[in-house]
């Protein structure tokens, strides 16, 4: 299997976007004009590092930063 590599700059770009809204990997890759597999790898690594997190509706799953998710949850709780 080919190892997927990326630059710190790529990672930073992904992180910035994740701090703006809930994303699906595919859309994130499209917006950043990056390879989906690379974005997937970056997001998984960010999750391992605690810099990104999952948000799930139960049937579908999204990604964002914990900071964004906390803010989003607060807004949801307020209705």
């Amino acid at each position: 299997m080919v190892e997927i590599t990326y630059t710190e700059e790529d990672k930073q770009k992904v992180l910035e976007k994740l701090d703006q809204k809930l994303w699906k990997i595919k859309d994130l890759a499209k917006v950043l004009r990056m390879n989906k597999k690379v974005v997937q790898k970056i997001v998984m690594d960010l999750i391992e590092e605690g810099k990104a997190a999952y948000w799930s509706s139960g049937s579908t799953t999204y990604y964002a930063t914990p900071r964004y998710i906390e803010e989003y949850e607060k807004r949801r709780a307020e209705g």
Partner: protein
Amino acid sequence: MSETPLLDQIPDGPWPSFVKEIKKTAELQDKAVAEGKDIKMPGSARALLKQIEISYKDKKTHWKHGGIVSVVGYGGGVIGRYSDLEDIVPEVHHFHTIRVNMPSGWFYSTKALRQLMDVWEKWGSGITNFHGSTGDIILLGTKSEYLQPCFEDMMKLDPPFDIGGSGSDLRTPSACMGPALCEFACYDTLQICHDITMEFQNELHRPMWPYKFKFKFSGCPNDCVAAKARADCAVIGTWKGEIQIDQDAVKEYAEWMDIEEEVVKLCPTGAISYDAEKKEIKIDNSNCVRCMHCINKMPKALKPGKERGATVLIGAKAPFVEGAIIGWVAVPFIPADELFDTLCEIAEKIWEWWDDIGKFRERVGELIWRRGIGEFLNVIGQEADVRMIKHPRTNPFMFFKEEELVESEVVKKLKERGMKWRSFEYEGEEI
């Protein structure tokens, strides 16, 4: 006056009642608290009833779904649920569901179940659902802060339990009991379900696809787990060559069964002939469509052929409202000993394709509708085959009215022998 007058009416109906069961759980929970056990969600089962009562009155749900809830390293397996009646029923403000990966074929020892229930009594509401429609054990109702310790306690059990799938991931694979209990099994459903679950742990715990994907394994065309109606990838046991016939056993059936009426005439392709004098049957195996009817009727006399394997059907889904699709044949026959490798290979090709061009919440079956079976077959490297029919049936479910049901000779015979039909009693004893 009861706090739940509307719910109290439900157990009066003819069906098993969730109200009765939740009330029982509430009593058990109170008892555990009184005994000084460490119960983290006291009063939650009773509060759940209160919330449902309010929903019945208001005619709307008071649940909000979704959230960040998960355990470390996992993106699926927990469904976030919050009550918007926090002030009235604080005990169920958080009421998250945990899906627990069940063992292949749903075999448990009572020890394993007791241990799991002890963990759940401590960390959750004590309410369970055995099993969810995907097959997982469903643990209903806990708080965000209890998810991780509950999960860790489950992992420490002997045997340990892991969390199942949810969200846009591989859902927990499920299998019929197969060769453990059933002589019709054409491959080891339990082993392959376990192996596929272990092989694709990343796909199971880290959701990253357009939507969900399900594997289900049935050992023969009886398809006891309804794989062909519900699984994106249904693996159904089948055989090549001749159905094995034991003519002596056929003669025994002939003593009490009308083989001509009950077997021969009901073969969908007319592949069976019966010599009433010799009391022997003959099968034109080239015309058999593996419907299992004759084998089910005369299990002592007929068995699937010796060269066994599985057919892979692709694209089924069974949503609640509409849009059900029954699976199409993708690979007509894979020998049993090649099944695992071939399945892994096909699955990875499908996921690559689907993940690339699938739309948000588009199941694999819908993608095949949209792009055509030709493209799909290219993706998995299969030639078109006459068995890949487009339209076997539009709805995978068949319903009969009571008056349409005709009692068969087999049922009559069983009744004569003392079997109370549909009552699970035999000679007056519950079985």
